[in-house]
């Protein structure tokens, strides 16, 4: 172990090349406001849909152009990197961005004359970035400090998904890649069906966990210490104020942006663990959450607007690591593109399955018993993937080797 020390002493100063690019994650939620400004300047209503075009169109292209980044910070600097305030401050600054985007958009819709098509485009644009309030809340909610956790609740309230704080950290992370998890999709399950299992299932699990915790403290679930109710109160107050100030159009505008925000989370959950399954050990417990139980993506551009969320494998194995320290590992199951492109693919089930199913089977080395499969699809998959096992295996072997 002496060798370790000398390595430490002589290690050259590590420079985080992405350091200042993380600002993109902070400013990305402001994009709907840029869209409004452009629409106002040019008179072209199409700009209200700016975020939609950038998210589903430009970002996947940029991911394809700029490709992947496999760099990891050396382990010796991680402790220092984790402590650097700068990174944390960026996540705090993102919180008011989400509020600004919501309030400015609502104000614009409430006070300007816009066609219903334009209102719809702006609602969907806002839905995307405020779906990413879930991403900001995600990064903050995993931290150990009380302040960060409160910031998480506050930002999750923007999109009315406060229960994510409990559901994700204590539910999804515990149960991920097992049949108990409503937020892990099965191979062959399309995203639309998945959403009907995931959205209510996630809420039920969160509520149950919070009920359990509060009962241990001798409190009712209807206490104000309920960490699902706390952000919910913020949401109700915020949305009521928007309605009061900006009028009845909010009754249409707010639900659309909120639903589309939730849809972003559903999309993320859908692609993050598609088909993956942790093995059950002899004692009935599931093996630990390891990096290969999540689909990873090293695509640099989309990672930079998502606080490294796509380095999901390391995140699930070690949830309290900060975004700037997340690592890639060799041999991880990898998405063919970043999240924006993968979300788009997910909405076209045939497309998504044709790309991802062979990858899942490959991941399991052709053993279908090691995959979570949608029941109604099982027969079809057995026929498809055991029929020409030889060919698939060979292709799998070369893919792994390369």
């Amino acid at each position, binding site marked *: *172990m002496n*060798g*370790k020390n000398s390595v430490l002493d002589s290690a050259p100063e590590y420079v985080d090349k992405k350091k200042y690019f993380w600002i993109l994650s902070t400013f990305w939620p402001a994009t709907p406001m840029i869209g409004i400004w452009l629409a106002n300047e040019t008179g072209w209503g199409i700009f209200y849909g700016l975020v939609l075009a950038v998210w589903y169109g430009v970002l996947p292209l940029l991911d394809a152009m700029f490709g992947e980044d496999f760099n990891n910070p050396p*382990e010796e600097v991680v402790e220092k990197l984790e402590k650097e305030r700068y990174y944390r401050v960026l996540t705090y600054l993102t919180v008011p961005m989400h509020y600004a985007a919501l309030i400015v958009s609502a104000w614009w819709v409430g006070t300007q004359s816009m066609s219903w098509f334009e209102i719809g485009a702006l609602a969907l644009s806002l839905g995307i970035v405020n779906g990413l309030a879930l991403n900001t809340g995600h990064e903050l909610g*995993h931290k*150990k400090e009380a302040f960060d956790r409160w910031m998480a609740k506050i930002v999750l309230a923007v999109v009315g998904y406060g229960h994510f704080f409990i559901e994700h*950290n*204590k539910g999804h*992370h*515990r149960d991920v890649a097992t049949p108990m998890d409503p937020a892990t999709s099965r191979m062959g399950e399309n995203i639309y069906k998945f959403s009907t299992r995931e959205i209510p299932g996630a809420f039920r699990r969160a509520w149950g966990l919070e009920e359990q*915790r*509060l*009962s*241990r*403290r*001798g409190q009712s679930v209807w206490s104000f210490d309920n960490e699902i109710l706390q952000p919910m109160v913020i949401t109700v107050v915020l949305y009521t104020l928007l309605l009061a100030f900006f009028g009845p159009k909010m009754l249409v505008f707010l639900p659309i942006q909120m639903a589309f925000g939730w849809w972003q989370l559903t999309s993320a959950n859908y692609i993050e663990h598609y088909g993956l399954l942790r093995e059950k*050990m*002899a*004692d009935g*417990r599931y093996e*630990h*959450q*390891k*990096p290969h139980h999540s689909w990873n993506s090293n695509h640099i551009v989309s990672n930079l607007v998502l606080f490294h969320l796509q380095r999901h494998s390391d995140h*699930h*194995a*070690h*949830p*309290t690591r900060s975004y700037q320290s997340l690592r890639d*590992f*060799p041999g991880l199951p990898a998405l063919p593109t970043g999240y924006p492109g993968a979300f788009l693919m997910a909405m076209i089930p045939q497309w998504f399955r044709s790309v991802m199913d062979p990858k899942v089977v490959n991941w399991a080395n052709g053993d279908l018993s090691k995959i979570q499969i949608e029941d109604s699809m099982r027969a079809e998959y057995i026929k498809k993937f055991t029929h020409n096992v030889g060919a698939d295996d060979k292709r799998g072997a070369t893919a792994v080797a390369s």
Partner: protein
Amino acid sequence: MARYQCPDCQYVYDESKGEEHEGFAPNTPWIVIPEDWCCPDCAVRDKLDFVLIEGSTGEKNISSNNTLSVSAKVSSSDVNTEISNTTMGAEIALDVATEGQHLNGHKPRVTNSQSGAAFLKWICITCGHIYDEALGDEVEGFAPGTRFEDIPNDWCCPDCGATKEDYVLYQEKLG
């Protein structure tokens, strides 16, 4: 009073402090914490994964009179848990007995701090995996009591693939 640590995120459960947020009052002994309770910070390790870092499981001596001595087998060797024979005590004893059985099924994660002073624990700096000499690693083929120095140099961390060189003495980190 004993302290238990999450091997993934280093969260520490301290019996004397309890964990109010989770509903465990100060002085809540480890053995009454539900078995399916998971780490409140990272949630990817649960009670059975936690590692004893200070004190011992046998420290919970509530009274010396009228005690019920339970050979709990919670630790890797013979730590006796003595609990007063109140109704609560009996309940705890039952919990301990079942937990003991359960733990025997898979590797117990609690090390002996009384007689096994010579056994050390090593932590992978890359992922936090802990190799405990007292327990060995059944899956990796190291019998309980296998010293870290006796592990082949080309052995890799079973969780993340880091090399043996990436392990450091765990006790050091606690100091």
